[in-house]
């Protein structure tokens, strides 16, 4: 049987049968002991766990211990894949296992439906006024069955008081869905799915794909948030969703990830040329001892690889989404850029005969310049200046000559990427907007055209912690600023030899350090 995952906003609010049964299923899982591999805690620990944190948050009682089986200690716990090209398929396998376990739990209850499927939280839904609000079934502790609502989580701070506020731009899909490549390149386009890596639980590299960068990361930070009036640099003040170590404990986590998983289908469905990697190293999963393993509803454990995650209707997954239509109405990155260049350069025939599948597979990525020293963010906007190397920046400006780029495999000038390297700090809920090319004294909010994107630092404390495998180097983020550079260069509005970059806090960013802010060109 193929189950249909439905948009939470297409369900009757607040307590559609799908949500009520989900709550009942979660209640069953939460009642199981940690040692049960189908329990709430065991499933959440697969995503991430740290003993001290779970105890502090009350998820481990004083006399309670984590399971001591070799399977749990050496394989099952702390598996989640972030900042790498396994992020999407790993979470699909994890989510499918969770869904089947919840479904089996529901079916132990009287009157249960046999077709329950996990709903998804479509924060880009156009049919409701504000789809970025937390669905009401999750927002209050009251529920039809009485007692504590299993879907409500008191450690879900949102803007500080429990109210979740997500701006439209925090969940913008344009960057993720319009990139035609699943696999990204280091320092250049991160790709839809991320840069090639081995098994990587603790992030330390600039390998995050566009889908993970947004909407995945901002939703985590904006839902989890931190307790109002407290210091978010103290992890004890953070919400569950703010940290990979605790995110799986919040019932909304699964609806968020169902939507992320759906967006993979949306991306594939947008264009026949958007394809998953075909390399063995992706299809077979990471080499080495650490494999992807998830519990099954019958209490067994099952290993999986990305190649098992390609068809949602295949046995073992058995689901499809209610809606995988294209929210960008067919707009493609290259087309949009060339249309913009057509106006800026006043060249009418620039987009003639354009084929999206002409995107080359082996781009050249090259450093253009960087700021002069590390920068530490505060409560107010922080600025830095990226100086560029004259001989190298000339390659970029030369690429705008029509005679140069028209002959390329992908007929466009160089793309440009802002790199925020080795971001370290203790605040997983830190979020900031990045503006590029703003004149000194200009008010950022009045110049949305200079806004490069939003950065959410989900997972920063682990990647800053040198005790973690490969930890200590922090996170790195890559944001495409091609549109801004096109405009600044072609209109002569700003000097590309010295480009101002402004960081505007959305959530508290005190103590966040960025070791280097740099700019790279990606030539085709």
């Amino acid at each position, binding site marked *: 049987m193929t189950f249909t995952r439905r948009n939470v906003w297409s369900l009757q609010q607040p307590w559609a049968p799908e949500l009520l049964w989900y709550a009942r299923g979660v209640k069953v899982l939460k009642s199981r002991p940690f040692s049960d591999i189908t329990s709430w805690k065991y499933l959440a620990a697969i995503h991430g766990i740290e003993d001290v944190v779970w105890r502090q948050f009350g998820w481990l009682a004083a*006399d309670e211990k984590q399971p001591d089986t070799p399977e749990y200690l050496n394989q099952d716990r702390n598996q989640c894949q972030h900042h790498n090209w396994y992020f999407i398929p790993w979470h699909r396998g994890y989510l499918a296992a969770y869904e089947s376990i919840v479904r089996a739990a529901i079916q132990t209850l009287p009157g249960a439906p046999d077709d329950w499927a996990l709903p998804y939280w479509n924060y880009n839904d156009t049919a409701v006024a504000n789809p970025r609000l937390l669905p009401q079934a999750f927002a209050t502790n009251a529920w039809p069955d009485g007692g504590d609502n299993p879907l409500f989580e008191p450690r879900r701070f949102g803007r500080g008081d429990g109210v979740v506020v997500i701006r439209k731009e925090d969940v913008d899909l344009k960057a993720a869905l319009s990139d035609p490549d699943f696999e990204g390149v280091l*320092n250049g386009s991160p790709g839809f799915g991320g840069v090639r890596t081995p098994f990587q639980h603790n992030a330390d590299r600039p390998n995050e794909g566009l889908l993970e960068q947004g909407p995945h990361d901002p939703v985590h930070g904006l839902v989890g948030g931190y307790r109002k009036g407290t210091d978010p640099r103290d992890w004890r003040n953070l919400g569950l969703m703010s940290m990979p170590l605790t995110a799986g404990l919040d019932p909304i986590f699964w609806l968020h990830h169902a939507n992320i998983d759906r967006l993979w289908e949306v991306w594939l469905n947008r264009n026949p040329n958007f394809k998953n990697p075909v390399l*063995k190293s992706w299809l077979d999963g990471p080499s080495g001892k650490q494999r992807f393993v998830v519990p099954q509803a019958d209490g067994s454990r099952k290993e999986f690889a990305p190649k098992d995650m390609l068809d949602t209707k295949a046995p073992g997954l058995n689901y499809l989404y209610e809606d995988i239509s294209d929210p960008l109405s067919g707009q493609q990155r290259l087309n949009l850029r060339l249309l913009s260049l057509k106006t800026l350069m006043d060249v009418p025939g620039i987009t003639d005969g354009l084929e999206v599948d002409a995107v080359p597979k082996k781009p050249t990525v090259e450093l253009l310049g960087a700021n002069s020293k590390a920068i530490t963010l505060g409560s107010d906007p922080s600025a830095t200046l990226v100086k560029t190397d004259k001989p190298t920046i000339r390659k970029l400006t030369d690429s705008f000559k029509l005679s140069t780029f028209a002959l390329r495999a992908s007929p466009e000038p160089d793309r440009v990427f802002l790199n925020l390297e080795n971001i370290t700090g*203790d605040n997983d809920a830190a979020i900031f907007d990045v503006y590029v090319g703003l004149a000194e004294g200009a008010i950022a909010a009045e110049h949305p055209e200079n806004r490069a994107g939003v950065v959410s630092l989900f997972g920063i404390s682990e990647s800053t912690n040198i005790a973690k495998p490969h930890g200590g180097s922090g996170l790195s983020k890559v944001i495409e600023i091609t549109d801004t550079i096109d405009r600044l260069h072609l209109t002569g509005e700003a000097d590309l030899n010295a480009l101002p970059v402004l960081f505007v806090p959305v959530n508290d960013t005190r103590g966040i350090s960025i*070791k280097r802010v740099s700019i790279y060109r990606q030539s085709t």
Partner: protein
Amino acid sequence: MVVSTRFREAGLDPLACALWSISLVAFGVIALSDNVHAELMLLCRSDPGPLFAEGLSYLHFYYSTLDLAAFAVGVTLMLVAMMTPALAGPLLHLWFRSLSRHRWRAITLFFLGYLGVWLAACVLLFVIALLLVSLTGSEPVAGAVAVLGWLIWQLSTVRSRCLARCHQRPRLSVFGMAALVDPLCFGATHGFWCVTTCWALMLIPLCLPFAHLPVMLGGAVLIAYERAGANGLGFSRVKGAIRRGLAPRSTTIRQRLAAAPANSRPRP
């Protein structure tokens, strides 16, 4: 199709293959022209005196007549053979985070810093090796002591901390004097943590000159594997098991929580 793409599609990392090729060439040179490397091995190959005092006097004699150039070449060859495969991470960092016209300059400066630290460390390691052989009066016994020392060091927390620091990737400046200093400092710093992580392993072939090549090759494989992995070749699990076995059962979770710093999770 580009060669690197062919390697990738065959499941091989082209950089790792290139670095291993350099390493094997260095091993080949060591094996074929021992007139260079033997300069180093002479130190331990000569009949070892059974007494510590003899060892010291021999050491004094050896260093007073040492051909420094041959020593430097020999040690550099040994380091290239053993350490090159473990340097993929730092080299990629230098390559991708430098201006394209400064990439080779940055890598050269890195190696200057890295080899400088290792050369200094090797002088000390040779002294230790010679003293070990002199004290024990036998190369195999000195080798056994070195292996024991390596095992103890391998399982120590201090070494884990040093290894963790081998994964640090510093900021690299792009312009001015800082663009020269940063790669040099990166090389020296990386060399320092590399020495502190691997000194005990490097001591073994120095104590066993009759088997130095296979021991060095094994060491190179181990270092590269460990450096690429996250958990130190499973030693962390061995350590964890030992610690669990030795941990005082009376320590409660609450006591451990109370002992934890107020605003931080455990860090080395």
